[in-house]
């Protein structure tokens, strides 16, 4: 026994009072400031790096059309596999010549399918956009994080989140009387394994119900990309906020 019998009740009371004091330090500010966000929010943006190497082959209208078609059709899974160059896999016992032969036959088979329109999949527009990138309009797509203007490598989840504005933006429209106002709202989205929208929650209202409604409508009208395995859990738990405009 470190304490004498007479001091034990005193020590208990002292501990209890100090514990309550610690709790009050943590909770009272929260109770007084109810509007404060208790979430840890990371801002993510996508960035496009444009290297101009020639006059653009495609007009703004052509690019818009392709972009809209791609946005409507693309449901590709976003993962690092889909980003960056694709390298030829070296197989056992295969020479470089064999590999090139294989690639050549692939391109030939694509050519033979050209006439068959019915076989063209929705992913066609992504391929066309890919071609545009090589034609001088856009060279490469990169990722960067806001807050630190130096480009940072984003994790897979952040890459998924950063890609979402491209999907939502086509549906984000406001009437003239709202577009003039400086409003802002945030929508929390819960995305399922197949990219389906499971739940939409108004995380922060703009204070204008019509504006909030338009933002929610834009989200509901969007076909979201399929999250990869590593992203699924967080997407399903609703760890994504869409800022309208931020």
């Amino acid at each position, binding site marked *: 026994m470190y304490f004498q019998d007479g001091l034990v009740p005193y020590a208990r009371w002292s*501990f*209890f009072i100090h*514990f309550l004091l610690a*709790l009050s330090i*943590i*909770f009272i500010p929260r109770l007084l400031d109810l509007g404060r966000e*208790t*979430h*840890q*929010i*990371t*801002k*993510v*943006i*996508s960035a496009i790096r*444009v290297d*101009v*190497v*020639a*006059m*653009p*082959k*495609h*007009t*703004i*209208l*052509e*690019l*818009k059309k392709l972009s809209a078609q791609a946005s409507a059709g693309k449901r590709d899974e976003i993962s690092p596999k889909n980003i960056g160059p694709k390298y030829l896999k070296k197989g056992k016992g295969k020479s470089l010549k064999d590999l090139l032969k294989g690639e050549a036959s692939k391109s030939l088979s694509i050519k033979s399918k050209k006439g068959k329109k019915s076989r063209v999949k929705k992913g066609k527009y992504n391929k066309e956009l890919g071609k545009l990138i090589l034609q*001088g309009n856009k060279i490469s797509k990169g990722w960067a994080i806001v807050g630190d203007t130096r480009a940072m490598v984003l994790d897979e*989840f*952040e890459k998924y*989140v*950063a890609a*979402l*504005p491209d999907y*939502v*933006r086509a549906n*984000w*429209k*406001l*009437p*003239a*009387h*709202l*577009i*003039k106002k400086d409003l802002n709202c*945030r929508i*929390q989205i819960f995305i399922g394994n197949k990219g389906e929208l499971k739940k939409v929650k108004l995380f922060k209202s703009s204070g204008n119900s019509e504006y909030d409604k*338009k933002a929610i409508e*834009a989200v509901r009208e969007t076909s979201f990309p399929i999250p990869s395995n590593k992203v699924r859990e*967080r997407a399903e738990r609703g*760890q*994504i*906020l*869409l*800022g*309208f*405009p*931020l």
Partner: protein
Amino acid sequence: MRKILILFSLFAFVNSSASQNLSIVSVGEATLEKDNIYLENPYYKGWISKENKKIIAKLVKLIRNDFSYYKNRFLVFPKKYKNYSSKSSVVESVNYVAWAKKETNLLVKIDFSSSVRKEEGLRYIARIHSINEKKVIKELQGTLFKKDWRKEGHYLSNRIFHSITGKKSIFNSKVIFVSDATSTGSGKKRVTRKELYVVDFDGANRKRITHHGGIVISPAISPKGDKLIYSLIKKGKGEKRIELYLLDLVTKKKQVLSRRKGLNSGGIFFPNGQDIFLTLSNLGNAEIYAMNIASKNIRKVTSHYASDVDPSINSDGSMMTFLSNRSGKAHIYTLDPSGKEKAVKRISFVGMFNATPRFSPDGKEIVFSSWLDNRFDLFKINPDGTGLSRLTKDFGSNESPSFSNDGEFIVFSSQRIISKYRAVQNIYLMDRDGEVVGPVVKDFGNCLSPRWTESFMGF
């Protein structure tokens, strides 16, 4: 102690549930939703003559046509135009719920009444109803005269547009351009004459401005629309001179501003309307100079062994863009026009031959033409050299772009080869993204060098 443990676990739970990791991404600014605007049949108050009814019908048709230019902003209803006839003698009250079901956002009702005296014209009241807000957002009154019905129609269109958007429209604008329509003869006997003309933005009301009987090139109009500068090519004995003229559109008096040896061309107005910038080559090399109209004193703005031509100034006069071959090819540059060779920056790095760079009214974009695939096409670029994008393709050879006063449209000349010996050049209008709205001037000789102006005095 048990109580303390319970409190501890509660504390831990509260804290863990409050700190969820969220990632936020900006969707960006919304695009503007189109407004469905319904222009109702006109209402007549009292007796209106048959002749006046015809004018009213034309006026309503003109307003409808004006709004159709902004097809990214408005959908004009009813979709099919029939001859507007009297709706009723009394302005009916608006059933907002019924209009909302038709997905109409805006409803315009105009009622006309005759003045007691004929010379006082027709009086009108236009009411703009916001269906969403269930109220009249603006009531506009005016007088319509038979001889000025087009002008009044554009004026009313502009007031309606401004009431809805809070911005100025293109409806009061005009386009000045050069045409060789007065040329005579053909083949070796052909005598080419190029004169200046002015036309409403919708192609109506074309008028001739100059009568030199020579070749007029590169016109420019002052910001107030009261002065015009242009160059005139004069062929003398063994030499060709290019002189710069100033035409006062109010007094109709013209004077030579510069007749130095060589080039006196490519003149543009500084935003103050008192100074101009022009290209002179009297010292052997084409350089850009600033000139005060009143004193005719000149100041060198570019100074380089390469040729510098085709200046364009942004609306606050803080930046000039121009064409120079100082890199070996014709490329676009910017500089601060307040000094000599001040803050020169090259902004175009691709293209075989770039030409006629022109600032947008807000100064955020520069439109220019560039030689590509054996013809000129139009492109846009930001003044910092970013955002290069293409506007035209497979639409003839397109040159001389000029932004509209609101920056939403670009007027340009487009040439089509008809045969080995014949080509036609017309003036077209497109929106800022390159969607062609239609011709402004067609089948009027070869038309070139269009310049947009919000105001034009004296004609």
